[in-house]
C-alpha cells in the first residue's frame, strides 16, 4: 500500500466502515433477505411439520395473520384433510390429480407424505383462521360462511378485519352476520368500552339464538349497566326459547309419532284387521331395513350416481321382500293356527328368533352402515325451531304410507275383499271370495308395509338383527291404544303416544318418561279395553 503521488492519502477512518453504516448494511441485508422471502412468496410452514398439536395451532394462527395470499388455500386444505406432511418435513397439498407444494403451489412429488394430524383445538383454529381470511373473499357464499365462523369463534383478533369487511360488504344479510360477529368479539374482549358493549348486546339480543345467549352470559368483567342490559337480553331470549321449546317439543312428538305410526301401520293390518298376533312383525321391519342396505350396496357398486335416489328404489323393494316373506309365513305357518292365539303367539315368536339369527348368520352380528342421501342430512332453522331433514322426510313418508294404505283398503278390489272377509268370513266365502287367498294377501300387505317402515327406520336407527325388537312392543301399544281394527285410531294413537312421550321426556327423563307412558296406557286400557276408537257392531264378535 505504497503512497503514490497524486493519490489521496487513505483516511484511516475511511479504511473501515463506521459503526453506524455497518448497522445500516446489516439492516439492508435483512431487508434484502426479507424481500427475497416475500418475492418468493413462501409462507413459513415449518410449524405445520411438528408433531405437537399446539405447534400446529400456532402455525395456523401465524399463517392467517401473515396475510399471505396462499394462506386461504393452505387452510382450506387443512380443513378438508388434504394437507400432507412429507418425510422431508415439507408440506404438500393433495389435489385431485396429484400433489402440489403447499408453499409455492407448484406441482411436485411427495413421496411417503401422510395427512397432517389435527385435533379439535387445531380444527377450531383452522375454522377461525379461515373465517378471518375469507371475510374479504369475492364469493358471497364464502363470506357468509366466514362471518358465521368468526361469530362462532368469538375471536377478539378478528375485529380489525371485520371492520374492514363490514365497510365494503354490500349484501345486507352477510353484513348483519358480520356485525353480529363483531359484536360477539367485542363482548368477549376484556376492557372494551361500555358503549361498545351495550351496542353489541343490542345486536346479539336481536339475533336471539342460544349462542348469543351464551356470549352474553360470559362477558368478562361487566360493569353494572352492561350486566343489567345483558341480563335483560338473556331473559328475553329465555322467554322466547320457552315458547319455541313447546313448538319444538310438538315437532319432536309428531316425529316420534310418525315413527310409531310407520312401525304400527303394518301391525294394524295383521293384528288389527286379521287378528293375528304376529310377534315376528318387528323382523319384517328389520328385513325392510336390510333390503335398504342391500339396495344401497348394489347402487354403490354398480351405479354410484343413483345414491341420492337409493331410498326411492328401496321402498318398493322392501315392500316386495317383506311382503313375499309375509305371504310365505302365512301360507306355511299361520294359516294352520287361525283361532289359536296362544299358539300363534308362540310360533311367531319362535319365528322372530329364527329370522334374527338367520340375518345374523348372513350379514353378521354387527351393525350395517346405511347411508343417508344428502337431502336427508342436516336441519332447517324455522324461527326458533330446528327441523331436522330426516325427521321431516319420515313424517311425510308416514303420511303417504297411511294414505296409500287407506286407499288400498277403500278403493281396490283386494281392499273390498279384505274388509268383507274380516267382517264376516263365512258370508264372504259364500259370495265366492277365496278367503285363504285373501288372508295371504292381507298378511303380505301388512308385512310389506312393515318392510317400508324398515326403510325409514334404517335412517334413524341401527340396522342390526335386533332392530325389530325395539319396535314390536311399541307397535302393539299403538294398535291397542288406537283401537284394534281402526287405521285412524292407529294414526291418532301413534301421534298421542309420541307427543306425550316427548313432553314427558324433558321433565321426567327418558326412563321414567317411558314408564309413565306405560302406566297411563294401562290405566286407559282398563277403562276402555277396546282403545280410543273401538270397532262397533257385529264385526267385533267375529
Amino acid at each position, binding site marked *: 500500500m505504497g503512497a503514490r503521488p497524486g493519490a489521496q492519502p487513505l483516511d484511516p477512518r475511511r479504511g473501515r466502515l463506521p459503526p453506524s453504516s455497518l448497522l445500516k448494511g446489516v439492516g439492508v441485508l435483512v431487508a434484502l433477505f426479507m424481500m427475497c422471502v416475500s418475492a418468493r412468496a413462501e409462507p413459513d410452514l415449518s410449524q405445520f411439520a411438528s408433531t405437537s398439536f399446539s405447534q400446529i395451532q400456532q402455525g395456523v394462527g401465524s399463517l392467517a395473520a401473515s396475510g399471505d395470499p396462499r394462506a386461504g388455500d393452505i387452510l382450506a386444505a387443512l380443513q378438508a384433510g388434504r394437507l400432507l406432511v412429507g418425510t422431508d418435513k415439507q408440506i404438500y397439498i393433495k389435489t385431485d390429480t396429484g400433489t402440489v407444494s403447499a408453499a409455492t403451489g407448484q406441482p411436485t412429488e411427495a413421496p411417503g407424505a401422510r395427512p397432517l394430524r389435527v385435533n379439535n383445538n387445531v380444527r377450531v383454529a383452522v375454522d377461525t383462521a379461515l373465517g378471518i381470511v375469507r371475510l374479504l373473499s369475492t364469493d358471497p357464499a364464502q363470506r357468509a360462511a366466514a362471518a358465521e365462523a368468526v361469530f362462532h369463534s368469538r375471536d377478539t383478533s378478528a375485529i380489525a378485519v371485520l371492520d374492514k369487511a363490514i365497510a365494503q360488504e354490500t349484501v345486507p344479510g352477510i353484513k348483519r352476520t358480520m356485525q353480529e360477529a363483531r359484536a360477539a368479539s367485542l363482548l368477549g374482549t376484556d376492557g372494551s368500552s361500555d358503549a361498545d358493549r351495550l351496542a353489541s348486546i343490542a345486536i346479539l339480543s336481536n339475533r336471539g339464538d342460544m349462542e348469543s345467549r351464551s356470549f352474553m352470559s360470559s362477558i368478562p368483567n361487566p360493569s353494572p349497566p352492561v350486566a343489567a342490559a345483558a341480563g335483560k337480553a338473556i331473559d328475553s331470549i329465555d322467554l322466547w326459547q320457552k315458547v319455541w321449546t313447546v313448538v319444538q317439543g310438538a315437532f319432536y312428538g309428531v316425529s*316420534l309419532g310418525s315413527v310409531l305410526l310407520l312401525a304400527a301401520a303394518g301391525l294394524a293390518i295383521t293384528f288389527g284387521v286379521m287378528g293375528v298376533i304376529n310377534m315376528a312383525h318387528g323382523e319384517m321391519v328389520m328385513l325392510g331395513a336390510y333390503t335398504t342396505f342391500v339396495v344401497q350396496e348394489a347402487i354403490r357398486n354398480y351405479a354410484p350416481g343413483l345414491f341420492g335416489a337409493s331410498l326411492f328404489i328401496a321402498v318398493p323393494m322392501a315392500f316386495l321382500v317383506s311382503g313375499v316373506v309375509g305371504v310365505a309365513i302365512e301360507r306355511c305357518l299361520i294359516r294352520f293356527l287361525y283361532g289359536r292365539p296362544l299358539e300363534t303367539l308362540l310360533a311367531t315368536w319362535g319365528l322372530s328368533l329364527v329370522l334374527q339369527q338367520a340375518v345374523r348368520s348372513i350379514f353378521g352380528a354387527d*351393525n350395517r352402515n346405511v347411508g343417508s342421501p344428502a337431502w336427508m342430512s342436516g336441519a332447517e332453522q324455522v324461527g326458533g325451531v330446528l327441523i331436522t331433514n330426516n325427521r321431516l322426510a319420515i313424517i311425510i313418508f308416514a303420511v303417504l304410507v297411511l294414505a296409500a294404505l287407506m286407499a288400498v283398503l277403500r278403493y281396490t278390489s283386494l281392499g273390498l275383499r279384505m274388509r268383507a272377509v274380516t267382517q264376516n268370513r263365512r258370508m264372504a266365502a259364500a259370495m265366492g271370495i277365496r278367503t285363504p287367498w285373501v288372508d295371504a294377501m292381507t298378511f303380505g300387505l301388512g308385512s310389506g308395509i312393515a318392510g317400508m317402515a324398515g326403510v325409514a327406520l334404517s335412517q334413524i*336407527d341401527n340396522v342390526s338383527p335386533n332392530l325389530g325388537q325395539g319396535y314390536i312392543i311399541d307397535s302393539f301399544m299403538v294398535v291397542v291404544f288406537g283401537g284394534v281394527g281402526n287405521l285412524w285410531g292407529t294414526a291418532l294413537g301413534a301421534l298421542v303416544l309420541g307427543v306425550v312421550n316427548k313432553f314427558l321426556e324433558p321433565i321426567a327423563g327418558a326412563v321414567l318418561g317411558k314408564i309413565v307412558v306405560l302406566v297411563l296406557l294401562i290405566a286407559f286400557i282398563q277403562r276402555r279395553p277396546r282403545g280410543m276408537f273401538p270397532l262397533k257392531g257385529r264385526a267385533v264378535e267375529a
Partner: protein
Amino acid sequence: MQPTVTRRNFGAMAVAAAAAMGIGRVANAQTAASTIKIGILHSLSGTMAISETTLKDVMLMLIDAQNAKGGVLGKKLEAVVVDPASNWPLFAEKARQLITVDKVSAVFGCWTSVSRKSVLPVFEELGNILFYPVQYEGEESSKNVFYTGAAPNQQAIPAVDYLMSENKITRWVLAGTDYVYPRTTNKILEAYLKSKGVKSEDIMINYTPFGHSDWQTIVADIKKFGSAGKKTAVVSTINGDANVPFYKELSNQGIKATDIPVVAFSVGEEELAGIDTKPLVGHLAAWNYFESVDVPTNKAFIDQWHAYTKNPKRVTNDPMEAAYIGFNMWVKGVEKAESYDPAKVIPAMIGVSVPNLTGGLSTMMPNHHITKPVLIGEIQADGQFNVVSQTPGTIVAEAWSPYLEGSKDLISDWLPPMSCGNYNVKLGKCGGAGKT
C-alpha cells in the same frame, strides 16, 4: 319394558337348549385328557352377540396360534365354546357346565357387568378362573377373576383430565344408558369433578333406556345446557346400539366436536363400523388400545386377525386387546406354576408381565387388575381413531375407587398375608365397607 325382557329370556333359553343338545360338542368333551380345555363363555346370539362374537373368534385364533407353537406344558389347548345367549342367568348355568362337566382349566368370557356378577359365585364356589376382558365400573375384586379391561381410573378419569386441560371444559354432561356400569362410572366422575371444583349446576346427568333410538329431546337439552357461556363436553357411557342414533342426532342438529365434544367409553372401532363417521370427526373415545396404534406388535396382531377371519376389513378393538393380554397372561401363569390346575395358577398369575399391543408391557397386579396405558383418540373420517394423547407410562388399576364413599377405604391384595379383595384399611380387617 317388562314384556321385552321376558320375551328375550324365553327366546334365549330356547336357543340355549337347542345348543346344549348339540351332539358334536358333547362328543368333543369326551376326548382324552391329553389336552388342556379352555372355556369360552361369550354370547353368540341375542343382543350382546354384536360385541361378544368377535371375542369368541379372537380366543379361537389365539388358541390356534398357541397350539401351532406347541401348546402349553407340552399339551394342546382345546376350546370349549358355549353360547349363553345374552341371558344373564344362563351365563351362570353355562359356567357351571364348563367347569363341572367339561372340566375346563380356565374360562374366558362375559361382557356386561351383570353377566359377570351372575357367574361370580359359580367361579368362587368351584375355584376356577375367569378372565374378564371388558372395561368396567370397578368396585370388585374376586380371587377367581382376572380383570384385563380398564377400571374407571384407567379410562374415565384420564379422559376427563384430558378435556379439562386440553379443551378447557368447565361444564359437563354425563350421559349414559341406565344400568350398573354408567351409573357407577358417573357416580365416580361426579365425585371426581366436584373434587376438582366443578359446581353441581355445571353437571348434567342423563340416563336413557337400552337401545334408546329417539334422541331429539335429549340432544336439544344438551345443546341448551351447552349454551350457558361455558365450554361444555359430553361424557358418554351410552351403550352399544343406542350410540348410532345418538351420534346421528348430534350431527343432524349441527353439534360438531369443536362445539361440544363427546368423549365415549363404549364406542370403539367395531361400533363405528356401522356408522357414517364423517359427521363425527373430532369426537373422542378413551381406551387402552386403538387399532391405529402404529407399533410392530399391533401390526402383527392385525395381520393375524385378518388372516384368521379371511377378511382384510375386520377391525380390531380394545376388548380384543384385553382378551389377547388375558390369554397370554394365562399361558405365562400356567408355565410359571408348571400346572394348569386353577388353584395353582391363581397365585402364579400375580406379577406376570406380557407385551400389550401398544408397545409396552402390562403386568398383573395383586388386585387381579392389570397395568395399562390410557389413550385418547379422536374419530377420523375413515372410522379409525387418531391418538391425540397417551399417558407416558402405564397406570395401575384401582379396583376400589377413592372417590366413592363406600369404597375409598378399601384395598385389594390377593398376595399373602392379606389375601383379601376388599380389605378395609380403616377397620383393619377384610370384609368390605362394613359399618362405620
